[in-house]
């Protein structure tokens, strides 16, 4: 019984992380219809950014977490504007920034100076392009087909996965969180501080999201865009702002998930994004476009995974192999899908010919 409760608690903490990740996916999918495979990359960036700010620059951990969430949100927005809604301005800005950086760096400039100069040049060219577009009329923003967006985000994931270790190194490092390995023991159960804080922060983030979703204007705008894109645009809701916000929220969630996942001693590795692949079954379980489903799915997946890990040796199921808990999650997902092909809380797609 104790084992079961312990497994439940640990599973819930794990599930909370998955819920955050899945919520990031779901928010983006609801508003834009894109499955953002690059969430894994954003998780990496968020975790390493927190590490950078708190360890390398020595700021307070929670402040570092907050900053990292903002920066990752900004990267998410940039990703959407630049690559998923191909707008000339952003393209020109980033390309010129990269070129300037490469050329200056190649010519012997200090790396950081070249980077900053590139950034400035990028901003300048972005503004210039915007003015030119306004003056002489611009082209339409091109958008990708659905399948295409999956591959573009996978492409971005690849790039991020390579750039992050190149900047921060391939070895494991410690995040420097204030929780470490502290535990509290009550009634025979072990409550790890990191897990408690994970649950707390996740609950806060989820509550925050639900408040925004229900009560704020942008939340209503996002729900409206999901229900009927064209009607929303016709009512004056700028779909650019909605898309950008969705990606920003997704990025922030990813940063928080990444930081809590990498808490503890020497947990921060460039392979952190693998946790995202277990968020997929959770997303399917809950339904692609339901935030409530995201929470439920994440918790279910976390608990199932942890209980499998606990009971596999206990019930003599070692022959199923190491890492069977991950497979179990996928099997559960498969079973649920066969019964409800759109997940537990997803909206059923109506196909019209």
């Amino acid at each position, binding site marked *: 019984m104790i084992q079961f409760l312990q497994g439940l608690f640990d599973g819930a903490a794990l599930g909370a992380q998955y819920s955050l990740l899945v919520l990031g996916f779901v928010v983006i999918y609801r508003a834009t219809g894109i499955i953002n495979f690059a969430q894994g990359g954003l998780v990496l960036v968020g975790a390493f950014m927190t590490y950078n700010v708190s360890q390398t620059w020595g700021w307070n951990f929670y402040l570092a977490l907050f900053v990292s969430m903002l920066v990752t949100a900004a990267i998410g927005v940039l990703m959407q504007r630049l690559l998923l809604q191909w707008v000339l301005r952003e393209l020109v800005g980033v390309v010129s920034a990269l070129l300037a950086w490469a050329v200056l760096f190649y010519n012997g400039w200090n790396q950081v100076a070249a980077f900053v100069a590139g950034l400035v040049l990028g901003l300048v060219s972005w503004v210039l392009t915007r003015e030119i577009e306004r003056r002489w009329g611009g082209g339409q923003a091109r958008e990708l087909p659905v399948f295409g967006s999956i591959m573009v985000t996978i492409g971005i994931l690849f790039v991020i996965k390579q750039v992050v270790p190149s900047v921060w190194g391939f070895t494991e490092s410690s995040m420097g969180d204030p929780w470490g390995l502290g535990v509290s023991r009550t009634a025979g159960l072990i409550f790890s501080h990191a897990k408690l804080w994970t649950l707390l922060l996740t609950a806060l983030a989820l509550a925050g999201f639900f408040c925004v979703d229900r009560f704020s204007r942008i939340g209503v705008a996002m729900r409206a865009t999901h229900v009927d894109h064209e009607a929303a645009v016709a009512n004056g809701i700028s779909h650019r702002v909605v898309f950008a916000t969705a990606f920003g929220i997704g990025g922030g969630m990813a940063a928080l998930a990444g930081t809590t996942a990498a808490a503890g001693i020497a947990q921060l590795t460039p392979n952190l994004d693998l946790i995202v692949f277990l968020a997929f*079954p959770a997303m399917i379980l809950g339904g692609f476009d339901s935030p409530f489903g995201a929470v439920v799915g994440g918790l279910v997946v976390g608990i199932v995974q942890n209980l499998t890990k606990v009971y596999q040796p206990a019930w003599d199921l070692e022959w199923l192999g190491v890492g069977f808990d991950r497979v179990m999650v996928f099997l559960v997902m498969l079973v649920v*899908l066969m019964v409800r092909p759109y997940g537990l809380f997803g909206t059923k797609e109506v196909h019209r010919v």
Partner: protein
Amino acid sequence: MTLMFCYFVLPLCWETFPFVRTIDSWGLTLTTLNYAGVFAIGALGLNLLTGYTGQVSLGHSVFVAVGAYATAYAGSTWNIPMWLWLPGAVTAGFLVGLVIGPFALRLRGNYLVVVTLGMVFVGDHLFRNWKSATGGNAGVSVSKASLEIGPLDFRNLSVFGQQFDKDQSFFWLIWGAVALVALLLKNIVRARPGRALQAIRDRDLAAEIIGVDLFRYKTMAFAISSAVAALAGALFGPLQGYISPIDFGLLVSIQYIAIIILGGLGTVHGSIIGALLLGGLPRIIEGLAKDVDLPAVAGDKGGIEGIVSISSLNHIIYGVLIAGFLLLEPRGVAGIWARVKAYFQTWPFSY
């Protein structure tokens, strides 16, 4: 179109001897072409499934792995002759595809993508843990597999008085297989099944209404594509000599998708072009990095300390290529070819 391509490929490799020397200087050795050939076979299968039937599958590497492990087991461990283990591997792939196929009936679009992703992980788990069949993490050697069909021994071929070495013999075997599979697929596509598959891709509900049996065609698409993938795996095993679970992960699946996107979804020659491109590109970059100082890349030339290594640069270029092609030319290289062809069809008067 593909027939012409095949006719070009076969005489081209007749000149394998001097040809090797020229393309060697570009970094494209015969080994690279062999690996590209294996990728081409796999990509042909995936194009049938994703390009023509519209079932996006991220699980292609599992089918390739099935073929490779079947080869390792049957050909190497049990020492079965080639004319038995090759069809055996293909049949194994076919059966696995038959099992996976019905899932595509219940699941559409994004859900199918994620389920096939899950398949990759389940497969990975199986290959790492079913040690008796697959050798676990350490992998298994395939070098003892016999490569003889009748009088042709593909380890050192000697035909019509010409003696070929190992790489060249493999070239003949692999690219001969590419030609055969391309022919087979082109034939499927231009006939009734092909039209049914494309109908499913465009609007499966409407296809069902006009009488296309969804169960039959979707399952068949999966089965044939996985049989072809198993063939690719079966040839990959002896080529590399040693296979392990790292060779068949999510990365390989994504490489296959990248190949068909770059080459052109829904075309046969596109798969081959894409495979050549993505197979040759890392070698070309390596060769380039030896001679030219790329900015921000740690090259062999010494001097500039780069931020990214060569392999990282390869991955970055993969990602950029995928994203770039989808944004700028969604129909891939085959699309560019089609546009060039269309332009010249009405040249010089385009009206």
